[in-house]
C-alpha cells in the first residue's frame, strides 16, 4: 500500500500524460518530465525568492538534496541543472550556516599554518570523503582539504577552482569544515603570494600612467567618422594569414595614419 499512501498526498491523483510525480518537501505534484527541478518547482506554483540565482549552474543558490524510492542514498544536484525523476523527494538547501572569517590577504603567509589559523576546523578532517560525494560540481573536495593540510596551495587552487559555493559539502561534513570558504581563502593566498605577477601587464600599466597612449587616443577621438571607419575596416587582425605585427603602432593605413614623429615611440 506504499504506492497508495504516497498518492494520498496529492490533490490530483490522476497521472497526466508525460507528467511525473515529484514530492516538494514531501508534498506531491505532477510536473512535465522534461523540466529541471527548478522549473518544476515553479511549475507547481511556487515563486522562488530563495533557491534561485543565475539559473545556469554558476552561482550555487539552488543546491538541492533528494532521494528516489529505489535507494536509501542521498542524491544531490543544482536545481537549475538537474532534470526531475519520477517519485523524487526533494528539498532545496539554499542556505546552510557557515561563517566567513575576515582576513587581510596581503599580511597573511601562504602556508597551511596561516590557513589553519583562520579555519582551524580543517585539521578535524577525518577523510570520510562525504564532501566529495555530495559535490554537485563533482569536485575532489576532500582532496583539496587534505592538500590544504599539506600546504600544497597550488593543488588546492586547481582542485577547488570550479566551486560554486553552494555549501552542500558544509551541510554533510562530520568535522564541520566550511570547505568553500577555505577554498576561496587558499586561492586568493596562492594567487596573491605564489603565482608570479605578469611583467607585461606591469609594464603596460606604467606606460598608460605615463600617458604613452594619450596622443593616439586623442587623435582617434578627433578623426572624422569616415576616416575612423576606414581605419577600423582596414585594421589587420592578429593571427590572420599574412598578418605579421611587429609593434602596436597605428600605421596600417597610408591615408589615415598617426604621426609618430613627435612622440618617443
Amino acid at each position: 500500500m506504499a504506492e497508495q499512501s504516497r498518492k494520498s498526498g496529492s490533490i490530483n491523483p490522476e497521472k497526466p500524460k508525460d507528467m511525473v510525480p515529484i514530492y516538494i518537501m514531501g508534498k506531491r505534484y505532477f510536473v512535465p518530465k522534461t523540466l529541471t527541478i527548478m522549473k518544476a518547482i515553479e511549475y507547481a506554483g511556487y515563486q522562488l525568492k530563495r533557491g534561485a540565482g543565475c539559473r545556469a549552474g554558476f552561482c550555487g543558490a539552488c543546491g538541492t538534496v533528494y532521494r528516489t524510492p529505489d535507494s536509501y542514498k542521498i542524491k544531490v544536484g543544482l536545481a537549475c541543472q538537474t532534470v526531475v525523476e519520477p517519485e523524487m523527494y526533494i528539498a532545496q538547501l539554499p542556505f546552510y550556516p557557515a561563517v566567513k572569517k575576515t582576513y587581510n590577504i596581503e599580511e597573511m603567509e601562504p602556508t597551511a599554518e596561516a590557513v589553519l589559523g583562520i579555519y582551524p576546523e580543517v585539521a578535524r578532517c577525518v577523510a570520510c570523503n562525504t564532501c566529495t560525494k555530495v559535490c554537485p560540481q563533482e569536485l575532489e573536495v576532500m582532496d583539496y582539504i587534505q592538500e590544504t593540510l599539506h600546504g600544497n596551495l597550488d593543488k588546492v587552487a586547481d582542485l577547488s577552482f570550479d566551486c560554486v559555493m553552494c555549501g552542500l559539502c558544509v551541510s554533510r561534513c562530520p568535522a564541520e569544515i566550511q570547505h568553500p570558504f577555505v577554498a576561496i581563502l587558499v586561492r586568493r593566498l596562492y594567487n596573491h603570494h605564489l603565482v608570479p605577477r605578469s611583467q607585461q601587464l606591469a609594464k603596460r600599466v606604467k606606460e598608460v600612467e605615463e600617458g604613452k597612449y594619450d596622443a593616439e587616443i586623442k587623435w582617434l577621438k578627433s578623426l572624422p567618422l569616415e576616416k575612423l571607419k576606414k581605419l577600423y575596416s582596414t585594421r589587420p587582425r592578429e593571427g590572420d594569414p599574412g598578418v605579421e605585427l611587429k609593434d602596436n603602432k597605428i600605421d596600417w593605413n597610408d591615408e589615415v595614419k598617426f604621426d609618430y614623429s613627435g612622440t618617443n615611440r
Partner: protein
Amino acid sequence: MELREHPLYSPEMIESIKKVEATRPRRAEEARRGYRFEKMSLEEADKLLHQFHPDYIMEQKRELRVGPSKGELLNHEVADIFEAHSRLAKKLDEFSEFIKEPEITTDVLVIGGGGAGNAAALMASEHGADVVIATKLRLGDANTMMAQGGIQAAVTPVDSPAIHYLDVMGGGHFKNDPDLVEALVKDAPFVIQWLERLGVMFDKDPDGTMWVQHGGGTSRMRMHSCRDYSGAGIMRVLRDEVRNRPDKIREIEFSPAVELILNERGECIGAVLFNIETEEYHVVYAKAVVLATGGFGRLHIQGFPTTNHYGATGDGLVLGYRAGVPIRYLGAVQYHPTGAIFPEQIVGLLITEKVRGSGADVLNVDGEKFVFPLEPRDVEAAAIIRECAPVEKGGRGKGVRTPTGNYGVWLDAPLIDLLYGEGTIERKLPAMVRMYRRFGIDMTKEPILVYPTLHYQNGGLRIKPDGSTNVPGLYAGGEVTGGVHGTNRLMGNSLLDVVVYGRRSGTSAALYAKEQFRDFGKPTLQHIYEYEKELAEIGVPEDKISPVILPNYVPEHVRKKQLTSYYQGNLY
C-alpha cells in the same frame, strides 16, 4: 554511445551530425592552413543587421511617452517598465512621511550586489566612506558571476589601449561615447592588475604572463580568462574582499531598492529598500548613491530566452529614470549568437564565445561554414538567424530542427581537440563540458546546437566618465549605464565595464560624500509625484508596476486558481 542509439537526438539531427563529422577533417586542414571564412564588410554587415537582427523589427518597438528621454524607441517590454507606476504610488503621501525617519544613515549607498556594486563598495571604502550595499538576492547573484569568456585589456606588445579603443568603437557602430571608451581602455590594464593583486586566478604561463585570445570583433588577442569561469573567478574574489571589511561595508541582502529619495535641492540622498522576505520597507539615507543594478534580460524581450540571472529586471533603469536621468541606446539589445537551443532543459543558456575563440566552427545543417565565427555579436547573431530563417522569409532554411521544433546551427566543439590536442576542451571549457554532460551530451565528441539568446542591455542611464549622472549625488556603473558600448558590446568588455565603472562610480561617490555633500535637506518623493502625473496623462493601468523585482514563472493554470494573491510586477 553510438549516435544512432542516442536517446536525445532525432533522426534528422543524427543525419546532420554525420555531415558535420564528414566535413570535419577538411575543415581542420583548412584551419591549419590559416584559411577562414571571409569576414563581412561594414556594408554587408549593415544590410544583414537591417534584415535579420531583432533590433530592427519596428513592430516590436514603440516610442517612450514619459520622462526625460520621451520619444526614445524601445522594445515594448522595456517601454512597459518605464510606463508603469511606482510601487509606492498608491500610498505616496504616507511614504512621503515615512521617508522622513531613516533607519540607516551612511556615506555611500550602493544598490546592486554584482561586479559593479562590489567594486564600487570596495573603492568607496578605500576612500574612507562608510558603505551600505543593498541587493535584491544574495551578494554576487548577478550576471557577472555567469560571465564565462573573459575580460579585455590591451597588454601585449602588439596591442595598445588605442587599438582597443578602435575595436570598441567599431563594435559599437561608432555610436559609443568616446570619453567613456577612453576611460574604459585606459583603465583596463590597471584593473586587471588590481584583480591580480586581489588574488583572482587568471590563466597564466608559469612566468606570470597572462594567456590572451581573440573574441568577436577584436583585432588583437586581449581576452584574459579564468578557465570558463572568468566572471565567477572575479566575482567570488570581490565578494570575499567586501566581506573582509564588515566594519566599513554593511551588506543588506534580499532588499532591492524600489525608489530613490531626493531632497528639495534635487540631490539624491538615499533610497527606499524593500525586504522581499518580510515585505517591510526600509529607508536609507546616504550622502551619495551608486546604482549598480545590472541589466534587463529577464524581461524576455521579444519573447527570447535569456542567459541572464533571475533578478535581471532592469530595476535601476526605472529608479534612475524617475529621478531624472536620461537613457541612451536602450533600444539596442544584445542577443548572444550562441545560446543553447538543445536539449530543451538548457534552452537560452550561454555557450561562451570562448568556444568559437578557441577554434570551433559555426556550421549549418549540411555541416558547412556560413559565417566568420568571430564577427561582432550582433552580426554573428543576425547571420545565424538568417541561416535558420525559412527561404520564403528571405532566410536560407539551413537550420537544424530540434525535436521540439526549434531551429539552430552547430558549434563544432570537437574540432578544438582535433586542432590543439585531446583534452584542450576539458581544460579550457570545464563549465561547458560539465553542463552538457549533465544533460547527456559529450561536447568533446559531438557538436552542440545553438541559436541567439537575449544576453545584454547595450544601453542604459547616461553617465560621465567619473560615473556621475545629471542628478547630484547619484552615480551609476556597469550594465545599468549606457554609452560606453554604443549599440553593440564586444565580448569581454562587460566584465571590464563593471570593474572599471564600478570602481570609478564608487570612488566618485565617496569623494562627493566627503567634499561636496552639504546636508540631507528636506527628503522628498516629489519626483515620483511628478512622474505619476505624466503617467496619468497617458493613462497607465493601475496594475502596471515597476521595478519588476522578480519575473513570475508560475504557469497560467496555477495563476488562475491563485484567486486572492497577486504579483506586483508588470510581467503578469
